[in-house]
């Protein structure tokens, strides 16, 4: 993370403003309702103690998007986009529930059991989503098809696949280990938060501890020079989409666990848009190049905080979209080239007046 801040010079301003924005929104919530930021430890009926409070809620509910957005950051940094992630979430849940309720013809009522081994319930959805990510990556990285249209295929077909897997039915389960994923907690922290943390750290480590991150930025900034310097963009792009597919699988498991069922119509709905927005708000440019995983996390939190804030004050959940749109509109206008140039010119003028070194 230190390196992320140090090398992201121009990003630092975007990341900085993103963090400022998040703090401001939290502040607004706090002003309007003092208990907005309160966190307490509560004991549940089954004896476990969990952290409660709006901030915890925000972190918890942002999990699905944050996890996907980690992969989406790399995809966008390479100049692409992946709109199939929502459908993959649906597929993930469908496969998981299918294997949880493998017995549905024999045992009609969902109970605290699973016929198929649990590792299959977890492994197969992840495998399927990884393969679909591979499909995307191959089309885009090797066949050089435009990302939007390539990922459109799975976006359209993915939910169909999810429905076919469960034969159109919606299953429920009471299997405790599965429900634990989305509803359980460890040491007071809800499990989704822990999973998110692991994923975020994992991706950060992968990206910064290997040269994958540098390769992604290189290809995103100047594909020609990268090629002459020996990089093979096809493989790099492939990996980014495979990773995103895998992460969508994880996200799908969390979602399915939360509702203890598979909802192929609503699972992952709008996730691709939220993930892209999280990345863009976090400072990564849609045209590709330098990226910031930290920024994406903050961006995801901002989106969830807005949603939570608005819900808190009784605004209808659908109208949240309007608020999201307004704030995002402000963000993208501020991040747009002409506006940024104008601001940086003013900043340089102030800097030289103060005798400091002007940033290029």
């Amino acid at each position, binding site marked *: 993370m230190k390196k992320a801040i140090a090398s992201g010079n121009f990003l630092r301003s975007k990341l900085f403003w993103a963090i400022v924005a998040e703090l401001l929104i939290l502040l607004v919530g706090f002003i309007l309702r003092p208990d907005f930021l309160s966190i307490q430890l509560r004991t549940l009926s089954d004896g476990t103690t969990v952290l409660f409070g709006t901030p915890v809620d925000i972190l918890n509910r942002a999990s699905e998007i944050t996890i996907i957005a980690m992969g989406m950051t790399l995809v966008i940094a390479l100049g692409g986009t992946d709109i199939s992630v929502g459908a993959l979430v649906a597929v993930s849940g469908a496969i998981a529930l299918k294997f949880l309720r493998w017995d549905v013809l024999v045992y009609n009522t969902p109970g605290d059991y699973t016929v198929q081994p649990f590792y299959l319930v977890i492994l197969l959805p992840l495998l399927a989503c990884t393969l679909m990510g591979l499909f995307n990556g191959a089309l885009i990285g090797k066949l050089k098809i435009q990302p939007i249209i390539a990922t459109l295929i799975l976006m359209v077909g993915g939910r169909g696949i999810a429905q076919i897997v469960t034969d159109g039915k919606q299953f429920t389960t009471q299997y405790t280990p599965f429900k634990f994923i989305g509803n359980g907690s460890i040491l007071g922290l809800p499990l989704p938060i822990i999973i998110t943390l692991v994923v975020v750290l994992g991706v950060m480590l992968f990206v910064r501890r290997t040269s994958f991150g540098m390769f992604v930025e290189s290809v995103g900034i100047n594909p020609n020079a990268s090629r002459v310097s020996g990089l093979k963009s096809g493989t790099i792009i492939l990996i980014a989409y495979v990773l995103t597919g895998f992460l969508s699988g994880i996200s799908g498991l969390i979602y399915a666990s939360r509702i203890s069922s598979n909802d192929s119509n609503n699972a992952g709905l709008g996730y691709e848009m939220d993930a892209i927005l999280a990345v863009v708000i976090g400072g990564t440019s849609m045209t590709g190049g330098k990226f910031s995983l930290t920024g994406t996390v903050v961006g995801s939190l901002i989106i969830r905080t807005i949603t939570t804030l608005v819900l808190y004050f009784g605004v209808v959940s*659908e109208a949240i979209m309007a608020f999201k749109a307004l704030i995002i509109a402000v963000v993208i206008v501020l991040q747009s080239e002409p506006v940024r140039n104008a601001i940086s010119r003013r900043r340089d003028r102030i800097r030289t007046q103060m005798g400091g070194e002007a940033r290029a």
Partner: protein
Amino acid sequence: MPDIHSRTLGHRERLRALLTNPRYLMVYATIGIFLLIYLFGALLYGSKGFTSVRTFMLFFSDNAYIGISAVGMTLVLITGGIDLSVAAVASLTGMIIAYGTTVLGLHPLVCILIALLAGVGLGALMGACIQYLNVPPFITTLTGMFFARGVTSLISRESISIKHSMIDALAGFKIYLTWPNAQGEWVKIKPVASIDLNTIAFLVVIVIGAIILQRTRFGRNVYAIGGNEQSASLMGLPVARTKVLVYSFNGLCSVLAGIAYVLYVKSGWNLSLQGAELDVISACVIGGVMLSGGVGYMFGTLFGVLLKATIPAIITFNGAMNSWWAKIFTSVLLLLFIMIQRAVIASSQRTRRK
């Protein structure tokens, strides 16, 4: 003058050129596959009524809203852009009409006017953002989509059904198809088939779209921008104005599509048409419009919409298959067309005539 390029094209050569023009090829592919699938449906379910005129007319009337929206989207895609807000604006239109007539008691035409202002205005705003602020179309129209959906939800959270007499009249307007029977009288054909307002609107808008694209300077500028925006600018074409107009026009089409949808379902609902923007985009792509811009024909889009319509129809007639198979087949179709597009580009790059 050296004689290196003397070749006058005769009619046969002209025909061959028409047939092998790579851009036309994609439209031929669309028409060809449409006929194939239609034939497939006819063979399997002709006896159940797949080949009836009624079914064929339903292709148009059921998908009018997609088709009308696809006209505007075709223009946007040809410029190399994209517009994700179309379904949201259509839904908003429906809500405005529903809320306006039912709750506020306004005349439908007034509501339509308000919707037009909103839709075209949003389109112009997005177009300006894309052109002058250099924000990528994907993000801009995505935000526009959120905004439109949000406003729709703000108006009403529940579905509102429309009971206005004018709407009913418009929705109920039908021209029955008749043919002379054995006695020489004109009777309705069986099963009953009719041309409704939606179908007429669909066809009219497609024709207008085709005229714009092929016969107006605006339309040709759209192609030029999509082909090479920098060249277009250097050649002195009004790039900025054209791009803003294209998004505004698409806003108009979205509103018209919304009206068509209202006549179809006679209600307004904030969750209506979820994901329909991608149906519109896929219809265009299947119709031969390239996402990279510069290529596309209204005729192709028409058949793209029809082709997309045949798949759910076949599934319905089959009756046994899960309706979700339609989505899977459509996505396979999409994959097929993308591959065709790629192959066509690759081969046209290889054959450069001297």
